[in-house]
């Protein structure tokens, strides 16, 4: 393995062309003598991407993903850090489980795996988990979520928001009123009316977002809203930010690119929670990401077994894999449309998620000498047709199967070590 290499003529953040030289895992001004040379022409270099919303399924559902396969999928997608959601079996609601996840991630070494702790014991929504112990563990947990379920009890939510201030943590909320969404299958609107599928109304998300920003403002805590999916939620977040409330928000690539019209196929690959919404919602989300109302992109990578998707819509699991297609989708809907630059992509997929996750001392760093060589090379010309069989993830439930994406990550480095290399580079590091 080469300890010194230089990527020649690469586009820094998509604007200035430069060489990226690495010696012993650190970015340096000048390439070392004899450093391996990689042709970076036509490529964009960004700091390693940081996903704030990943389901790695280990422990419990290793048939659908493991920390290893999920790490490989992440590296392939350009990510160098992922935040693993707590809805595993057992639930990540104790220091023991989060330390296990964290150290397994380090052992594999392809991405830094940061466990997200459960807000409530067993995700049951009735008793706070020992968040302090998780924060003090070797996993240094800073984000807490019952993702998959909403912390719907307003008193419990208030307590959680207040409690995590003690160790600089934040609650990240899956906003879904459970009563308004009992049995819900897809966005409630014209398509659900035609298809006879039970509706998941936008208000079930918006009412929780509104409540949470008001609570966060009241107790002076920060709140992060997961997978914002509606125009109404965007308006509420915008209003809260204008009031000075410490709210941040994420949007997924699929909510930026797909609508509820996909459900007309009754193909459960398009079944996701929160559901795909209207084209008006998609436009509002794109506007909000471009203007900063929505802070970041997060994948909500949710692997599922074939049998949980190859069935009736109502029986199918919610969720889509997304780590490996995120860069291509964001390029397609935000960059190629002129709404954002690659520098903006670095902000919303690396720098700000690292800050929200309190991992900005090691991720989302500037690309300059002295910093850790943690970055990804993106080829914006590498258009390809998504083939589920070709995914590094153990699961195949991508909504983009058979669709063309304009670009992708072609090499990813974590502290100087290549964690993914397109075949074109494999020789250089042989």
């Amino acid at each position, binding site marked *: 393995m080469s300890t010194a290499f230089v990527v020649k003529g690469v586009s820094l953040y998509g604007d200035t062309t430069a060489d990226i030289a690495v010696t012993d895992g650190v970015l340096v001004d000048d390439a070392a003598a004899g450093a391996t040379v990689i042709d970076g022409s036509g490529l964009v270099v960004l700091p390693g991407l940081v996903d704030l919303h990943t389901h790695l399924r280990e422990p419990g559902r290793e048939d659908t993903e493991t920390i290893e396969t999920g790490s490989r999928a992440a590296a392939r997608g350009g990510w160098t850090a992922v935040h693993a959601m707590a809805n595993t079996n057992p639930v990540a609601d104790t220091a023991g489980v989060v330390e296990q996840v964290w150290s397994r991630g380090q052992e594999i070494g392809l991405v830094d795996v940061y466990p997200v702790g459960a807000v409530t014991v067993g995700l049951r929504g009735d008793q706070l988990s020992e968040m302090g112990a998780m924060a003090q563990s070797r996993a240094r947990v800073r984000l807490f979520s019952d993702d998959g379920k909403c912390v719907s009890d307003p008193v419990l939510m208030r307590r959680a928001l207040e409690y995590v201030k003690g160790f600089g943590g934040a609650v990240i909320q899956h906003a879904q009123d459970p009563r308004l969404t009992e049995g819900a299958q897809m966005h409630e609107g014209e398509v659900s009316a035609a298809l006879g599928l039970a509706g998941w109304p936008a208000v079930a998300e918006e009412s929780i977002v509104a409540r949470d920003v008001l609570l966060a403002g009241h107790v002076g805590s920060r709140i992060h809203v997961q997978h914002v999916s509606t125009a109404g939620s965007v308006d509420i977040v915008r209003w809260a930010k204008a009031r000075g409330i410490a709210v941040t928000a994420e949007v997924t690539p699929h909510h930026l690119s797909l609508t509820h019209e996909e459900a007309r196929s009754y193909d459960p690959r398009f079944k996701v929670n929160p559901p795909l919404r209207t084209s008006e919602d998609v436009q509002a989300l794109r506007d909000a990401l471009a203007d900063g109302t929505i802070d970041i992109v997060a994948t909500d990578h949710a692997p599922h077994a074939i049998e949980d998707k190859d069935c009736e819509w109502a*029986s199918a699991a919610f969720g889509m894999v997304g780590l490996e297609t995120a860069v291509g989708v964001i390029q397609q809907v935000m960059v190629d449309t002129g709404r954002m630059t690659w520098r903006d992509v670095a902000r919303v997929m690396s720098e700000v998620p690292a800050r929200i996750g309190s991992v900005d001392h090691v991720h989302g760093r500037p690309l300059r000498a002295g910093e850790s060589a943690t970055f990804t090379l993106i080829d914006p010309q590498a258009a390809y047709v998504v083939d589920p069989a070709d995914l590094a993830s153990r699961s195949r439930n991508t909504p983009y199967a058979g669709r063309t994406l304009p670009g992708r990550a072609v090499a990813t480095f974590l502290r100087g070590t290549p964690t993914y290399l397109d075949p074109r580079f494999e020789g250089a590091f042989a």
Partner: protein
Amino acid sequence: MKHLLGTDDLTRAEAIRILDTATQMAATQEREARKLPTLRGKTVVNLFFEDSTRTRISFEAAAKRLSADVINFSAKGSSVSKGESLKDTALTLQAMGADAVVVRHWASGAAHQLAHGNWMHGSVVNAGDGTHQHPTQALLDAYTARRHLVDEPDGKGLDGLRIAIVGDILHSRVARSNVALLTTLGAQVSLVAPPTLIPVGVGPWPVDVFMNLDDALDAHHFDAVMMLRVQRERMSGGGAAYFPSPAEYTRLFGLDSARLARLDAHSIVMHPGPMNRGLEISAEAADSTRSVIVEQVANGVAVRMAALYLLLAGEERP
């Protein structure tokens, strides 16, 4: 026509062809020997994931009168205990060489998935999928309405007729199928239901909507009034109930003798069955001379014969 999945993808010409064929089928049922040799050697599977004796025996009678071999396959499963998957069932039927599968399923979209899942090659007839579609019910309703309300009905649609559908629109596959089919055939449809049982996304439907039956009767002279069954589970569940009480439902939406008397002399009363007498329909209305409810059942066999005939014996299309 390869499949019959819903009424929303039927053209007017296709729909009229099915109705006209049903007329011919009904005529053959007046004869002494009612059995036709048309589908001899073909296998029709009745695949029922949900109990419905009425619909199953109607399809069974239709297939048998066309001389098809009929296999009844009860694959009862629920969203809780899934049992054998839809896919495995389809692969089994393919292996058995089913020419047509008549499928009733609790999940919306199941017939669509069976037809388009690359699991089997036979024709799929949707006998009701969740709260989505029930096309043969709508076709038999249209057939019944046409017989009573259109002179020399052969080759004609339902142009100019005004038809009310009263009841739980939100959860009704019968309502969805009828809105599309009746409109395609030229009728104007009014929906009458408590606002809680009207889908949120009803906006683009080609209908007008009334929130009680008297308002609807004030606004239009209906040629046909179709009463839908009210499911008991819609009334329970505390805060989740869709209306306060059966009595209030009957007061606002029930077809009682007073409302029956407001109908024009030629108007007919329909119900897909089974009825809740005294709830959505009074005994007087159900048993009145305007009621065509029993005839709907008989017409169901003729319409299903027509559908199977056109799917399995119709000329090959490229």
